[in-house]
């Protein structure tokens, strides 16, 4: 089994999840609570990776961070090397690719918090941001957990985007799904089946625990 690839995938999924937690919560807050009428445009953009072929997303990310784009050149000047075919480039692509899996569960849960609780909090002298921290976040903990778990699992299994942006560099961008593809290409069905089975089991456990959490198997009903 390709332990290097597995370890890389876990690192990538963890980093992606942390980034999504940091930017997904403010984004979901904005989507739910902003009075702007055009916010549906942002919602649609966030949801795009759900329907777009990963290769298309990967292609645009590759162009956007490549040496031909201003962003790519600026990054190369600062960091000393380009973004494509690096872990950072992969991370950027993964964040975009998994964004709906974090932002949608967050925003659904934020929106389901009774608005009257927020008004009660405001009339008690507590600011909107403080109200979000003390009322909305604690009451949305399940949605946040689902978002975290789903974006982790989704990143763990990504293939097309990684192939486009990261290529296939062992220890740098060869994730577990690419390693399986390689094994099959070289007719090493033994390694492919071992890794596939592991990924299957891990994915199943993650999803089962998420759905169990939502059905209140372990958490007391509120």
């Amino acid at each position: 089994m390709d332990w290097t690839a597995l370890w890389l995938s876990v690192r990538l999924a963890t980093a992606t999840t942390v980034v999504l937690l940091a930017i997904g919560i403010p984004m979901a807050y904005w989507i739910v609570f902003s009075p702007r009428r055009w916010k549906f445009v942002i919602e649609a953009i966030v949801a795009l990776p759900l329907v777009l072929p990963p290769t298309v997303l990967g292609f645009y990310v590759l162009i956007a961070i490549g040496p031909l784009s201003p962003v790519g050149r600026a990054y190369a000047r600062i960091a000393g090397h380009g973004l494509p075919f690096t872990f950072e480039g992969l991370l950027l692509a993964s964040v975009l690719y998994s964004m709906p899996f974090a932002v949608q569960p967050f925003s659904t849960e934020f929106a389901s918090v009774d608005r009257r609780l927020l008004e009660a909090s405001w009339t008690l002298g507590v600011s909107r941001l403080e109200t979000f921290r003390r009322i909305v976040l604690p009451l949305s903990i399940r949605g946040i957990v689902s978002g975290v778990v789903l974006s982790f699992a989704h990143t763990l299994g990504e293939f097309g985007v990684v192939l486009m942006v990261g290529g296939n560099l062992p220890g740098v961008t060869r994730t577990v799904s690419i390693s399986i593809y390689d094994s099959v290409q070289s007719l090493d069905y033994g390694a492919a089946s071992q890794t596939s089975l592991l990924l299957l089991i891990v994915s199943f456990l993650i999803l089962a625990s998420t759905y169990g959490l939502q059905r209140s198997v372990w958490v007391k009903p509120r």
Partner: protein
Amino acid sequence: MTLDVRAAQRFPSGFAVDVMLACDLRGGSMLVLFGPSGAGKTTILRQIAGLERPDRGSIRFGDDVWFDSARGAWCPPQGRRLGVVFQQPTLFPHLSVLDNIRYGGVRHVSDTVMPLVADIAARPTKQLSGGEAQRVSLARALARGPQLLLLDEPFASVDTPTRSRLRRDLRSLLQQLETPAILVTHDRTEAMAMGDLVAVVIDGRIRQVGAVADVFSHPADAAVAASLGVESVLPARVTAASQGLLTVAIGAAALHVAEREPIAVGAHVYACIRAEDVTLETAQDAGHASVRNHLGGTIVSIASEGPIDRVTLDCGFALDALITRRSRDELQLVPGSRVTAAIKATSVHLVPLG
């Protein structure tokens, strides 16, 4: 403290309010916003709370300007130092009862507020009944020492015995704390029991403001009268009780009233008498009937309402009677005539205060 609201607001649904309200709210006194469902009472309360921003106008309380469209002034609800109790309980389910009460930065819950929740303070928030949850909501609203308490039909979802207990508790608390309050209700008994002042809201406008007894006894126009139900509403005191019959004193006069619910001797009440339940007799023919109450009085005025005449008497207090044109002619009633008003003990409804 003077409350001055001039606020117009139109909603996408087409519903609109246009409020003109100025009144003096002393410490411990209560203004009731009374009117039928859908009249806009809650909207007015939400404007005062800062949860709705009117399209134009101004809202002032004492020296504070909470909203002024001409100057672009706007104070969010956080800055108004209010207590608000909503129609449905709005306790934060993930916090304990005490943490709910302390939520708005309250370190120490005062000894005045604490008795309100002493028996339920240790219970899990999610297991409280509707009435208990509203007690906590009330304690939470009062704990910060608001300069004005806003109540949006807070007892609507509570059973009747609990409701009367909550009303009494609230009334005495507000007097102890000297906090003025505004109560929204469509229940006339609640309006009478709780209010010092009443503002009648119909179709998004305030049609009449005044002392409870004045407004209920003298509605300004037909629409107000229809929403209130026309009756004489007389401040009175229970002086005796025996065998299901209460004696109430209205000024110097006394009335016998059938006891429908237990009311303690000494209690202050409103005695409500419908004009159609008052019979007029001339002095000579006062007979022996089952009518318990006979009050001597002088006719002050007679107003024609179609085939019916409304006769206003002075019996030591003002009392209206409705009689037919024919009876008036037969009895030869004119302003200044001496008459006896007969009222059955079962026709007088008492509303205890608080």
